Structure formats: structure tokens, C-alpha cells
């Protein structure tokens, strides 16, 4: 942030605006606290949690992990392209990233409707309270991320794309924490 740092040298500086990092740290605190609470409640009822977890679709979760990480890659490549002045390629990358976000939501919606068909709601078991709360809250961030990616594809300054990509990677990162803790942990 100091004037002495040259624009190309990013060591010692944060990419993007200070405020996006305030948001990212806040989000990580919230998701971290939620997963921490999940683990704490689980410790009191491991058997019940394992039984409930068997109702989850792990394949869908794994697929969504691949989808979201690929989307993150597309966003990162878009930023590189924009920095190199390739605005068309940058927009294409952002479009692919957003589209994969939609795929993620589609898979998520299939999961939710399967749960609903089984009669599983938020109060069925504490496991599902957390499941719906944490993955639902995350899905809301995917929706927000798609909107933001669309906005910066339109207003495509390097700074804007940098901020959007930082946010999108946070959404990625959070999913990579949610997936093992909620879907896989035995």
C-alpha cells in the first residue's frame, strides 16, 4: 500500500482492496466458528452424526469440489489475462468461472431436493441443522460470487477483477474445508 512499492512487485502487499480482506477474514471467522461448533457438538454424539452423514451424497460433494476448484482456476487465469491486457480472454475466463458456479448450485439443489424427498429437514438431527446451515450459507456466497463475477466482467478493471477473484477463492477455500469436515470425516 506504500507508494515506494512498484506496481509489479506484489511482495509485502495484498492483492485487491483492504476492505475485501476485511470481508474475507470475517467470512473465515464465521465458517471456522461454524465448523468448530459442528465438531464440538459431534464429539458428544459421534454415532448419531456418523449415521446421519451416511444420508449425504459424497459423490455429489466430490463432484462439486472439482467444479468449484476448476472455476477458481478459470477466475485466476482471467485475472492473469486481464493483467496482460487481454480483455476478451479475461471475460471468457470470468464467464467460465461463473458458469461453473451455476453448475455447483445445480448439483447442490439436486442434493437438497433428495434430502427433502427423504423427509430430512433442519430439525431432523443436529447434524442436519449444521449441514443445511453451513452448506446453505456457503451456497448463498456462491450466488453472491456469481453476481460479482458478472459485475467485474462488465466493469473489467484489474483492481475489480482482483477483488472479485479474491472473494471467489475464499468461496473455494471454504468449500474445501466444508467438504471433508461435513461429508467425509469418519
Amino acid at each position, binding site marked *: 500500500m506504500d507508494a515506494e512499492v512498484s506496481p509489479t512487485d506484489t511482495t509485502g502487499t495484498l492483492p485487491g482492496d483492504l476492505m475485501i480482506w476485511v470481508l474475507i477474514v*470475517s467470512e473465515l471467522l464465521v465458517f471456522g466458528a461454524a465448523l468448530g461448533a459442528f465438531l464440538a457438538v459431534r464429539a458428544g454424539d459421534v454415532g448419531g452424526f456418523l449415521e446421519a452423514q451416511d444420508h449425504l451424497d459424497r459423490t455429489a460433494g466430490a463432484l462439486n469440489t472439482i467444479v468449484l476448484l476448476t472455476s477458481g482456476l478459470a477466475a485466476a487465469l482471467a485475472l492473469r489475462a486481464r493483467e496482460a491486457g487481454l480483455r476478451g480472454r479475461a471475460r471468457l475466463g470470468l464467464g467460465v468461472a461463473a458458469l461453473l458456479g451455476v453448475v455447483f448450485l445445480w448439483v447442490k439443489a439436486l442434493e437438497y431436493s433428495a434430502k427433502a424427498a427423504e423427509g430430512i429437514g*433442519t430439525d431432523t438431527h443436529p447434524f442436519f441443522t449444521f449441514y443445511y446451515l453451513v452448506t446453505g450459507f456457503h451456497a448463498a456466497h456462491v450466488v453472491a460470487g456469481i453476481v460479482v463475477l458478472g459485475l467485474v466482467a462488465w466493469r473489467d478493471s484489474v483492481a475489480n477483477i482482483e477483488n472479485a477473484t479474491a472473494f471467489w477463492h475464499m468461496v473455494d477455500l471454504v468449500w474445501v474445508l466444508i467438504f471433508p469436515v461435513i461429508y467425509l470425516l469418519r
Partner: protein
Amino acid sequence: MKYQTQKIAQLYFTVALALFAIQVLGGLLAGWIYVAPNTLSEILPFNIVRMLHTNSLIVWLILGFMGAAYFLLPEEAEREIHSPMLAYVQLAILVFGTLGVVVTYVFNLFEGNWLLGKEGREFLEQPLWVKIGIVVAALIFLYNVTMTVLQGRKTAITNVLLLGLWGLALLFLFAFYNPENLGLDKMYWWYVVHLWVEGVWELIMASILAYLMLKLTGVDREIVEKWLYVIVATALFSGILGTGHHYYWIGTPGYWQWIGSIFSSLEVIPFFGMMAFAFVMVWKGRRDHPNKAALLWSLGCATLAFFGAGVWGFLHTLHGVNYYTHGTQITAAHGHLAFFGAYVALNLAIFTYAFPILKNRDPYNQVLNMASFWLMAGGMCFMTFVLTFAGTVQTHLQRVMGEGFMDTQDQIEIFYLMRFGAGLAVVIGALVFIYAIFVPRREVISTDATVPAE
């Protein structure tokens, strides 16, 4: 005073201080009723006294915010207030409404009347006609301040202040919606109460504090603004979903317990941010402003808000804890220090800063004012401690051991006696403050030891 229309603030502050006096005297009476429960039980029952105590607090704080806006906006926007006449009309409506409220509460003249009678919803008891008056006054106010800012310079302070004031007025509209279902009633009720004090009021607080820091410490605006944005972002991030900590036991779905616990735990961050901000600005500041009393109130505000709202709030915000402490004296302890630290001290800080300027008495040390700070802050801290002890004992006896409410009350009487003493110190402090603001004309204490004090 650079702009003539800043003078509007003086009348707002004066009315606010008159209500402040009524509020603390009402509090003292309520505190005595805890000690001797039959006091005035026929003429002025406890529920009415409590209503006056809380309602007058809210009204005078809002009058203070509005006065502060009229005081600081001309300097920030670099132009006069759009319409001084409207500002006085607005104040007249609010004063008339307040008097109507007091008369309605005390004499209960229109029991059950849909327009004139009190509505019996804690903090939102105002008769419907007063609520409508409040909205009209708020619209006049928003029109006036928004026009001032739109035609003038826009700064981070004016942006955040206007966002807070608009939020305050818009959220009040939920006071008109009162569903039959008691659970839903409470849900919307918190849209006003919580989203005020743990949402938009924090924006107002941060912007006024930022203005005071700018004036008192002389730190660059750029630095002040960066802090302001971070504080506001964390306040909204934690505060909005933090509303969930009121939804634990009102019939809302169980997931609110986790939403409320997690987000409201983060509500301590903006308050810590404000405290850190105030102290860092003072350390960095180059200016040695003579109004030491305003600086004392500003630092006291940020510190006591952190402890009262932040720490004492966190104390009972997790649903596992709140299951036991809900509605005990722990809540009263938190409520008193939070309101005093965050909003009372903030208002008294801006009054202390503004009055010498409004009355052309600069430079001005206000030693008496500083004494009143220590009386009020000391009294309020003592009250918070004894109520916390009372609440702890109450929680154990009533919620853990299962004793009856009144049996428990008998056993914590000693704390109520001490609370009354603490309240007395606060009232004396408040009266000294009011005297110090209005009466002494000259009072400059030289730091140079060779000059005798005046």
C-alpha cells in the same frame, strides 16, 4: 463556529439534556423501587417508571444524534444546513410527541384507544399518533440533512452518518407492524430494537467518533476514513445476523441458535475496533486540543462501549449460556454499561466538544465536566459489577437450583441496595455535567505551574 446554522444543535442538545435529567431521575426512582417495592406503587407503578426511564433515554439519545448531525454536517459538507426553519419544526414535533407520551403513560388517559392509547409493546409503547409524528419528524430531518450533504462536500463521515440516520428512520417503520402471533411480533420487534443499537446506531457512533478524533487529535482525514470504513464493515457484518441472538427462545427454528451465537460473538470486533481507533488516533495525533474534557469523554465512550457492549454482551450471548442467564440481572448489567458507554458517553462527548464552540467560550478545559465523567463512569461501572454479581447469584438460585423468582429476589437485595448507591453517583454526575455545560463562563486551567489557577 464556522457556520451559523450549527447553532441549531444547541437547542437539540439542550432538550436532550433535559430529558437526560428526567431519565436518570426516573432510573433512581426505579432503583429505589427494587429496594422498597411498594414505593409509589399506586400513583406511579414500576412498569410506568421503567417505561419513562427507557423511553426518555432513547428519545434523548436520538435528539442528541440529530443535534450532532446538525452540528457537524455544515463543517463536513462546507455549507449551511438546507433549512434551519424545518429543523426547528422537526424539534417542535418531537417535543410535542414526547410530552404526549409522558402524559399518556403517567395518567393512562386513553387506555385501549387505537390512536391515542399506549400500545404496550416494550420500548415501542408510544401511541400510534406519536409514532406517526416521529415518522413525519424523521422525514423532515432526512430531507434536511440529505439536501445539505447532496449540495455540499461528501466525506466518509457524512456518508456513514447519513447511512446510519436513514437506517434508523427506515427500521422504525417496523414499529407499525404488530402481528397477532407473539413469536412473529417479537421477531419484527427486534428489527427495530436490535438493528438500531447493534446496527445502524453503531454507524452513527463511529462517524461521530471519527469526527471528534479528526477535530481533537488532528490526524489526517485519510487515516480516520480508513478506520471508519473497517469499523462500519465489521459492525454490519456481525450485527445484522447477530439479531439471531434474540431468536433463541421465541419459537423460531433451532438453527437461529447457531446463527445468533456465531455472528453476535463477532459483534465485539467493531467495538474493539472503535476503542483501538480512538487510542491510536490520540497517540498519533499532533494536535494538543484544549478541550480535554471532550477527549476524555471520547476515549471513555470507546472504552466503556467495548466493555459494556462487547465484553458484557459476549458474556451471555452464546445460546448455551443464555439458556440459564436469559432475562436475569446479567441482562440489566449489560444493558446499563452498553447504553452508557456506547451512546450516552458518545452524546456527552459531542455535547462537551460543541457547547464551548456554540457559546463562544473557547478555549475551555471544563474541569468540572471531567469530574462528572469520573462520577458517572465510576458509578456506572460499579452498578454493572453489582448487577453482574446479582445476576450470577440469581442464575444459580433460580435457574440451576430451581428456587422461585421472588424467593431469589429476597436473597439478592443487598446488590439492589448497592446498585441504588451507584445510581445516586450517576445522577449526581449527570447533574454536575448539566451544570458544567450551562453555567460556568470562564474556566481555563493552565498547565504552567507558575500561573495560579483561576
